[in-house]
Structure formats: structure tokens, C-alpha cells
């Protein structure tokens, strides 16, 4: 009985994830909008840094700029991923099926994580190409993907919960931004610190990196647990 239920949960989890990926591959809505948004952010950065002078080394703020781009693109994507479910009342159809609510949460969160990682992978080379050419990359290369992954996990986990709330409100994307940014503040601070250590290298950078990673891991663990526990209430309301 328990095994049977677990088998069904796994089948449902795969079905939701598969459906999201198929729909995305077909419409390419999220990837193109998020990717374009990231590119446009680069243009804004160019404008912002245009008066900073030749002595200014963009590497010093590279980590911050990268995470800024990720935060805004991810909010765009999160909003999209839940609007799909809401549009034709499909979320209701999901809730009517014999599915455990956490299965929906994990499937949606993993889907969002995948899309966010894809956008990160696409954005980083472009960012490096546009802004980081004059200085050589000083840190350890494996640090970057680790920091990006830890940050993306937190964003997609809590973000899925918040986006499920915000699609049911009057000012969808605005409400998501207002809820998302302050809640994510600790994660972003740690993510920027770790990524910065990876980009800049130097004395103590390894320690700074692991401190940031530890903080992110802690945030991810606590917040994912809370989101997981509270999702049932949100989705049922």
C-alpha cells in the first residue's frame, strides 16, 4: 500500500516535471523571456558603468551584477511558471487528482530550478565576455557553479511558494517582487560573497567562499523545509 502510493507519487512527480519541460520546449516562453531580460540587464550595466573610468575594475562588483541579473530574471520565470497553471484553471485540476501536495511543490520547484540554471549557464559567458575581459579570472573555477547552484536552489524553492501565492493576487508580478526581495536578502548576501570570492580569489578567498556556501546551505535547508511544510496551505486556499 505504502509502496504503491510512493510509486504513484513518483509517477505524478515525473508527469508534472515532464509536462513543464515539454511545454517550455514547445513555447520557449520562459527561456527566451528570461534570457532576453538577462541580456537587457547587461545593457543597463553598460550604461551604469559607462562613467566609471578606466581605473575601475568591473571584477570587483561582478558577483553583485550577476546576482542582480539572476534575481530579476528568476522572478520573471517564477511568475510565468505559475501563470501556466492558473490560466485555464489547471491548478484546480491538479488538486482534484489524488496527489500529495508536496509532490506538486517539488515538481514545480525542480522545474523552476532547471530553467534558472539554464539561464545562468547562458548568461555567465555573455557577462564574462562583455565585462571581464581585461582582468584575468583569479579564483578557483569550480567555485562558481557551486555558488550558483546553492543560490538557485534557494531561489527556486522559496520562489515557487511565493509565486503560487502571487498568481492569486491582484498585482501578480509586483507582489512577487515585494515578497521575494526582502525574503531573499540573506541568501543574496551570502551568494554574492561566495561568488565574489570565486571571481576575485586572493588571500582568504577560500574561507570566504565556504562561509558563504555554509550560509546558503543553511538558508536553503531552513527555507525549503518551511516552504515544503506550508505549501499545502497555500495551494489549498
Amino acid at each position, binding site marked *: 500500500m505504502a509502496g504503491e502510493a510512493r510509486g*504513484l507519487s513518483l*509517477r*505524478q512527480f*515525473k*508527469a*508534472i516535471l*515532464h*509536462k513543464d519541460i*515539454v*511545454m517550455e520546449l*514547445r*513555447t520557449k516562453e520562459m527561456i527566451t523571456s528570461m534570457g532576453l531580460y538577462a541580456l537587457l540587464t547587461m545593457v543597463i550595466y553598460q550604461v551604469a558603468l559607462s562613467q566609471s573610468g578606466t581605473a575601475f575594475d568591473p571584477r570587483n562588483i561582478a558577483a553583485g551584477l550577476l546576482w542582480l541579473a539572476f534575481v530579476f530574471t528568476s522572478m520573471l520565470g517564477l511568475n510565468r511558471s505559475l501563470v*501556466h497553471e492558473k*490560466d*485555464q*484553471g*489547471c491548478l*484546480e*485540476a*491538479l*488538486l*482534484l*487528482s*489524488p*496527489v*500529495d501536495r508536496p509532490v506538486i511543490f517539488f515538481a514545480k520547484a525542480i522545474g523552476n530550478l532547471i530553467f534558472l540554471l539554464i539561464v545562468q549557464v547562458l548568461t555567465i559567458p555573455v557577462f564574462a565576455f562583455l565585462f571581464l575581459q581585461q582582468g584575468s579570472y583569479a579564483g578557483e573555477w569550480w567555485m562558481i557553479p557551486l555558488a550558483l547552484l546553492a543560490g538557485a536552489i534557494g531561489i527556486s524553492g522559496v520562489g515557487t511558494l511565493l509565486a503560487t501565492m502571487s498568481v492569486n493576487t491582484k498585482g501578480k508580478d509586483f507582489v512577487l517582487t515585494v515578497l521575494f526581495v526582502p525574503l531573499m536578502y540573506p541568501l543574496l548576501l551570502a551568494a554574492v560573497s561566495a561568488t565574489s570570492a570565486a571571481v576575485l580569489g586572493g588571500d582568504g578567498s577560500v574561507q570566504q567562499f565556504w562561509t558563504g556556501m555554509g550560509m546558503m546551505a543553511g538558508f536553503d535547508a531552513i527555507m525549503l523545509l518551511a516552504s515544503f511544510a506550508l505549501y499545502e496551505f497555500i495551494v*489549498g486556499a
Partner: protein
Amino acid sequence: MTEPATIDAAVEVRDLTRTFGARKALDRVTFDLPTGAFLSIFGPNGAGKTTLVKVLTTLTAPSKGTAKVSGFDVVADAVELRSRIGLISHNPLLYPDLSAEENLVFFADMYGVPDAATRVRELLVAVELDHRRLDLVRTFSRGMLQRLSIARALLHRPKVLFLDEPYSGLDPHAVEILDHLIEQIRADHTFVMISHDLVKGLALCSHALILAKGKVVLSAPREELDEAEFAETYRATVGLGVA
């Protein structure tokens, strides 16, 4: 998964109350519906029709009282209950960017339907959409959507079907198709329908229920109803307005 010993009533509602603060969406609603019956629920906007169906489909928990569908309690046996009911709404509840077949396969997975591919094909043939199974749902007409959404609701062979104003926004042709499909599956299912349309709702039903301000104003089998009197009661409740 064992069936309960006795299934006399498909739907069994006792003193069902749903409150939030001072507002009462449902107020001691009590009624029974025998297996195989067709219940039409009438009532003005805000009378509690939608809340009643939400409670019966386990989407909302009751504040007080009990409700059983197909012998399963809406709170204690929610998961078992869900696999025995289907919903046809005025919303198609389908993903526009998936094909007809992908939609059905997806929901078959959600319900854990065994041998999903065969079942999906069988239903597509039954609703005469087999030739369009690879087309995106986005390209479908209202009538086709309605047919597909009936196929979706029937995937897991539910015992009780809930209809949430399925006729709203349909053109006459689509209404005909829907009538025909309901006629076809009428024999093996119990129906609970929310209706705004007095004539249509009364024509289809075997039992009628009028809700107003969350209370049952009238609940009776079709044959015991005097049509003129019924229409009068209905009109009077509409005058009561929103609860």
C-alpha cells in the same frame, strides 16, 4: 483500497457548515443523493453552490458536519475520494500548449491510471477527437475543448461526476454535443451539477436542490416537484440575493 461495505447513497451530506468569521457560506446543509441520480443545484450568486461543490470535491474543508461521496469521507478519506470523482467545469482545465493526447496522458499519470496509452486512445475515440489527438489544445474550438475535458474527467472511471456550470458560454452546437455526451455516460455515473439555467438544469436532473444564503431551501426528487411552484421558489430565492 477497499470499497466501503454499503453504498446506498452516492452523496451523503449531514449538517454541513462552512463559516469564516461571521460569514456563513454553508449553513447546516443536509441531503442524500442515491447512486445513479442527477442532482441539479440552483441558487443565486453567493448562495454557497460553489462552496458546496468545493467541499464535496475535497478542495475545501468543512467547518462542521460531515459529507461523504461514494461512501468516502471528504476529510478522512480525501485521497481515495479524489480518485473516484471527476469534474467538468466551464473552464476546460486543460493545458493549451500540450496536444490533446499529451493532456490526457498527463492526467492519466496524475490519477495513476493503469495502461494509460490504451485508455487515452479509447477515450479519444469515444469523444471523436482521435483524428486531432496530436494537435495543440490551443487550436481547439469550444465544442472540441468541452469534449476533451469530458474525456479528461472520465479517464480514471470516476463514480461521481461534478459539473460546474458546464453550459455557460457554449454555442448551441456545443450545447448539443455536451447533451449528447452526458446522455451517453448518464447510465453509469452519479451527477452533481451547479446550474444557473433553470430550464436546462431541471430538464436534466432527477433531483433538485435550491440553496440560498448557504441554506437548503428546497431538496426533492424531480417527480415530486411541481414545476410552476419550483420556479416560484427559485425566483423568490434569487430575490434574497447574496448571503
